[in-house]
């Protein structure tokens, strides 16, 4: 007799095939496929068939050899993520240039009135000027214009250049002035307006223009005006070169978006938490009010927009009306979003504060009977609905060598983080929390400013390295790796991902340290937080320290560092934790499918 355990998950459908010999299952093969359609809907049949085909091929048997398929009673949990920025920087009447051309010219600080380089002839002797050099002026001509004007007694104190000509011009003029180049939108620089140009020595960053009082000194600002230019100073911190231009009407605003508050309803009490005060307070309140019955956002606020987006998606998935969707858990995380400054002249970015939110709803029981019937009809093999997902995961996890009762299983998925605990008396307690792999992706995408979802997924899954020569790379942990063949010049000196032996170049403005930091922080913020929340909910007497063994399973447990990050955090509580190894050979995959096969047999 051959039994197949089929686990239909949010992202993948997994199969475990076993031959039953004298009341003992003997596993012969596993199969995997992406889940087709939404978990718990008849669309899943295609995925089940594909995964079965995979397993059957590996086992060298045929479909009709299978006597029984056991499918899981899917936990009706659906999670989703959303994010809202709570600050926004707007520059009206362009007033700053804060980018990092690799080779600005000259050095120092220069103040003057902006004038096109070809109009220098018309300026009066003694005037303080900043030359504007658009791309149709050759650098030699520009240098000649400036030299001629300097000879005539004009004070040219700096220059703004559109092309990458800063050093060339600097080398050809008689006075050493700061020159900022590669200003793509130079036509937007207002003329006859006071501007300050600053270029720092190599290895240093601008001092005056990154300091609000420095800007105030240059432009003679009063205290109120000084307050309003703080965002400019902040945006220029860390740059080697910068320009600040103050038009009479110009202004920079840091707008606070009214983020609103969350109304959190618990079973016994309710409370409100302001989003502006950050995620810690929100999560504290969630802890205090647990278990939750619903979460709402204050009317007309961004918080409300955020939650209604989640509700809408849920209602499409579950077929319930948005009013019936009750949010059972949220995970809030503070983050920074890299956003283009509105009104910048050289594609400047600014980090805005934001709150990311994952929400989880329990829909009414998913109709697995329908799925079972459809599988039975289409694949023509008897189907039986096995036990609860959490129990099956524990049964499967127990096949990991070196674990025993009492045991907790952490299922790190894409949408939700689930935990189950089995005590000495075979009693099982399970919990489902919002926030998992997809939230990590959202945080990485926001902080690094990357829109391409597949790049974000790769950043999450693969380590970074820097190509240091045509033949070697330095990995993020400092190890240098040499190649026999020269690397593609297109990846030279770039930051790359080590994706299955291939080097995938990343956007040039990112560096190895930043990527590594953002990636690890995102994983910690979601998975460490949720591991602790989940385990304390299922632990005896809500005390994590009473758990001895934690087995990590699920797709995110395959990650190259998430299990280590979690183990590190749990070690503080004296817990043995690690990536599961189902049946000693499957790694963290196939736990539920294996559990389904095993259920009903004495182990």
């Amino acid at each position: 007799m051959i039994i197949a355990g089929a686990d239909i998950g949010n992202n993948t459908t997994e199969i475990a095939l076993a031959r039953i010999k004298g009341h003992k299952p003997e596993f012969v093969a596993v199969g995997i496929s992406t889940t087709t359609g939404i978990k718990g809907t008849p669309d899943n049949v295609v995925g089940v068939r594909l995964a079965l085909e995979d397993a059957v091929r590996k086992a060298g048997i045929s479909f009709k050899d299978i006597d029984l398929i056991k499918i899981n009673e899917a936990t009706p949990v659906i999670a989703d993520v959303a994010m809202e920025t709570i600050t926004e920087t707007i520059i009206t009447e362009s007033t700053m240039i804060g980018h990092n051309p690799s080779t600005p010219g000259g050095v120092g600080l220069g103040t003057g009135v902006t004038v096109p380089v070809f109009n220098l002839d018309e300026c009066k002797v003694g005037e303080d000027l900043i030359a504007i050099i658009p791309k149709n002026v050759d650098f030699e001509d520009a240098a000649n214009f400036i030299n001629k004007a300097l000879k005539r007694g004009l004070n040219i104190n700096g220059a703004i250049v559109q092309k990458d000509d800063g050093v060339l011009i600097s080398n050809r003029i008689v006075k050493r002035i700061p020159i900022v180049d590669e200003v793509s939108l130079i036509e937007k620089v207002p003329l006859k307006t006071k501007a300050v140009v600053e270029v720092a020595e190599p290895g240093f960053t601008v001092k005056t223009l990154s300091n609000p009082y420095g800007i105030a000194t240059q432009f003679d600002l009063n205290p109120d005006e000084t307050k309003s230019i703080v965002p400019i100073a902040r945006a220029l911190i860390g740059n080697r070169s910068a320009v600040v231009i103050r038009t009479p009407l110009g202004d920079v605003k840091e707008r606070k978006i009214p983020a609103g508050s969350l109304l959190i309803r618990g079973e016994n009490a309710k409370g409100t938490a302001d989003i502006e005060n950050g995620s810690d307070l929100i999560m504290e309140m969630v802890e205090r009010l647990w278990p939750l019955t619903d979460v709402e956002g204050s009317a007309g606020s961004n918080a409300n927009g955020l939650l209604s987006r989640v509700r809408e998606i849920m209602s499409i998935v579950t077929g319930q009306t948005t009013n019936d969707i009750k949010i059972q858990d949220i995970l809030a995380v503070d983050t920074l979003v890299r956003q283009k400054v509105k009104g910048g002249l050289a594609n400047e970015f600014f980090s805005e504060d934001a709150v990311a939110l994952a929400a989880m709803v329990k829909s009414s029981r998913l109709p697995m009977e329908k799925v079972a019937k459809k599988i039975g009809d289409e694949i023509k093999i008897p189907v039986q609905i096995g036990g609860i997902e959490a129990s099956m995961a524990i049964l499967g996890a127990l096949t990991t060598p070196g674990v025993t009762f009492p045991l907790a299983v952490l299922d790190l998925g894409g949408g939700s983080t689930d935990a189950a605990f089995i005590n000495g008396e075979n009693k099982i307690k399970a919990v489902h929390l919002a926030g998992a792999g997809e939230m990590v992706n959202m945080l990485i995408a926001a902080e690094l400013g990357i829109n391409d979802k597949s790049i974000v997924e790769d950043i999450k899954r693969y380590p970074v390295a820097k190509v240091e020569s045509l033949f070697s790379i330095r990995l993020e942990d400092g190890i240098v790796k040499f190649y026999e063949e020269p690397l593609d010049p297109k990846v030279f000196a770039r930051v790359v991902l080590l994706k299955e032996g291939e080097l995938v170049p990343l956007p040039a403005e990112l560096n190895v340290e930043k990527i590594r930091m953002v990636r690890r922080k995102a994983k910690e913020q979601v998975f460490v937080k949720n591991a602790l929340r989940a385990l304390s909910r299922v632990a005896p007497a809500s005390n994590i320290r009473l758990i001895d063994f934690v087995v990590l399973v699920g797709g995110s447990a395959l990650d190259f560092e998430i299990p280590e990050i979690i183990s590190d955090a749990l070690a503080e509580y004296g817990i043995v934790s690690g990536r599961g190894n189902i049946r000693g050979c499957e790694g963290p995959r196939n736990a539920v499918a294996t559990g389904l096969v095993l259920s009903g047999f004495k182990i």
Partner: protein
Amino acid sequence: MKVYEDIKPSVIIYYENPAINHAELRLIKEGLEEEGVPVETKIAKDNVESLAINAARESRLGIGIGLSSGGVCHLQHRRMLPGNPIMKIQFGVQDKSYYRLLGCNAARLAKIMPLKWM
């Protein structure tokens, strides 16, 4: 004779014909100047592959540029194969800014900075 340590580190350009190559040579040198990397030039007769790789082998930075009288230009690194340059400009290229870009990339190669591509 100069000892190796006395040779100034610079990118070396071998070019065929001072009369014909004048304009392209100027553009390549501008690219290097903007990036702040020293450059030396020498007239030599050979095919472009050999010009480039010999220049690279001569350079203490290991980076050389070969420029033929026809305007074909190779950017080379000492450790690359002669026929496999880092960047090349074909015969009859209309957009002269490629030469400056090649000079710029030679410098970026020396500074270990990402190369620029059109």
